[in-house]
């Protein structure tokens, strides 16, 4: 379970995240939806403790991530914005490396690795060096190492970005499975279909602020748009009339994403 309250982060004069609050519940998929530069990545970076908020509170399994980042990281599995791999290591070695850093060893680690390789359909590439991997294979490897320790909370920053159909399906499959196992899954996306297909709760973020939150049905009701995409456009102030855009002078926020 993740709870954030009134989160702020600014870069110079730009308010990248400006008072964001929401909750990602266990056994549910929460989608952080917003256009490019809305502050999704910055919000997630603060959540996974590598960025310090200027203001606000982050609780991960009740652990304050600002005052005890290391303690919070115990409960997190993260697929960051940049998920670079080590070209000279194999997929299996990547999973082992992170597993061992999490304190998993021996038979437990071997077991868990086999499970992940099977679940992500990676058996054929498990012992190949990642240097020649396709984008999909790289994402799977990064995902596997991120959840090797079976973390209670899983954060995924645009996990399906640039993936082909089959890889996208595999990632969605994982997200559903994690949800089914009772994990709290929070992922960001700028793709409407993705979010609507997977999420129990959608948090719409634009220019560093939450502009709408709730189930897909809630959002439809809120905006009066039957089509979820229209609802999204209306909420994020991307509409052409400009009437729903209170921050037009502020420009694109979220310089870091």
């Amino acid at each position, binding site marked *: 379970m993740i709870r954030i309250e009134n989160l702020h982060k600014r870069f110079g004069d730009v308010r990248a995240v400006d008072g964001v609050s929401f909750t990602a519940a266990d056994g549910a998929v929460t989608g952080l939806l917003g256009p490019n530069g809305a502050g999704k990545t910055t919000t997630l970076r603060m959540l996974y403790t590598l960025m310090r908020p200027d203001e606000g509170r982050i609780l991960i399994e009740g652990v304050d991530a600002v005052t005890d980042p290391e303690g919070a990281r*115990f409960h997190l599995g993260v697929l*960051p914005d940049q998920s*670079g791999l080590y070209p000279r290591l194999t997929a299996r070695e990547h999973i082992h490396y*992170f597993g061992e*850093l999490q304190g998993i060893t021996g038979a437990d680690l071997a077991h868990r690795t086999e499970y992940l390789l099977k679940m992500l359909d990676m058996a054929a590439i498990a012992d190949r060096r990642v240097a020649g991997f396709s984008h999909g294979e790289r994402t799977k490897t990064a995902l596997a190492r*991120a959840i090797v320790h079976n973390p209670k909370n899983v954060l995924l920053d645009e996990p399906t970005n640039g993936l082909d159909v089959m890889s996208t399906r595999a990632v969605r499959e994982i997200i559903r499975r994690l949800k089914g196992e009772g994990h709290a899954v929070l992922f960001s996306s700028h793709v409407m279909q993705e979010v609507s297909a997977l999420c129990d709760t959608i948090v719409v973020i634009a220019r560093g602020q939450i502009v709408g939150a709730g189930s897909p049905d809630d959002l439809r009701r809120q905006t009066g748009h039957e089509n979820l995409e229209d609802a999204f456009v209306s909420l994020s102030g991307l509409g052409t009339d400009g009437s729903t855009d209170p921050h037009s002078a502020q420009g694109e926020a979220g310089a*870091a994403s």
Partner: protein
Amino acid sequence: MNSRSLAQVMVVVRKELVDWSRDRRSIMTVLISSLLAPAIIGFMFSSLASRQRQVEDITVPVVGAAHAPALIEWLQQQPGITITDGPSDPEEAVRTRREDVVVIITDDFARDFAASKPAQIRLVSDSSSQNTRPKVQRVRALFQRYGSEIGSLRLIARGISPVVSVPVQVEDVEVSSAQQRAATILGFIPLFVMLAAFTGAMGIATDSTAGERERGSIEALLVNPAPRSAIAGGKWLAGTATAMLSVVITSALLFALFQYIPLQDLGIRFQLGPAQLLGTMVCVLPICPLIVAIQMYVATFAKSFKEAQSYLSFLMMAQMVPGMMASMNAFPAKAWMYFVPWLGQQTLLTDVLGNKVIHPGVFVVVAVVNIALAIVAVRATAGLFVREKIIFGR
């Protein structure tokens, strides 16, 4: 640091070493730089030895030997001298470097000699040629000796003590001897060993810092619940291991090389035996952690491998300055120098190789100073791993 963090340190060490061992570029760097030192020193010594031999056994081409049979006979009695017939065009032969030196005995030699007038001998040489200078000097000295012997005999024949004609006696003290040159070459050894430490460290120091940033893998790594000090520490220890490996290989190769160099033939009482090898290790290995730590700290500021390498090449030059100065004997060794990194290793190594007796405490203090400074640098690097500009700045 608790046992959990310690285990994490070891996990990072193992991963970095495995990664490094598969990096052909790093391995080649270590191998080439390890071979460089023995190759260069071996080459320098063999050229020195051949030059020395050239001076010892020389062949002197003489034109007009028939004009001075007594002189030729005297020359042939001198050790290491062989007289041959000179070329038809001596000046051309020397200019084209076919001959190093040619002696011409003039037609009037016999007449002038008999009349006790200065009899002329021409020495054709090229003073711009460094290599032949010792040989030319040797030949000139031969004639001077012959001249003074004959002069003395003439004075005695006239009832005068030859000593009278020597109002001033000059004694040459040659400092630029073969020994001296050999010592200069030996002075490069510490430099090469330090260089080996530097190049051995570079692979992991750059790959695990700037490399992580360039690949974008640092974010995922730092999300793990491991203290920054454990991650930086693991990378540091792995880098230290490769730096030390490089030093050991280089020293061992130098050791092997010196078993084959005939130093005695050069009149040098230098040895690189097991004792010196051990001394070299004890002296240089403790600085490896510091070299790695500083390289890591600097490389962490770089966004890419290339950027890191250009930073480190400046660092290398800066590190080499005290070594260069010490090997050129620009300043005499003072006590405080032992405790300054790099300078200390250089001074200490010179002592070790020069068979000076060194108090074991000096080694201990030098090691403690270097390792303490290294820990400071590693902590500073761990501090950088917290900075958002470093983690996210690409």
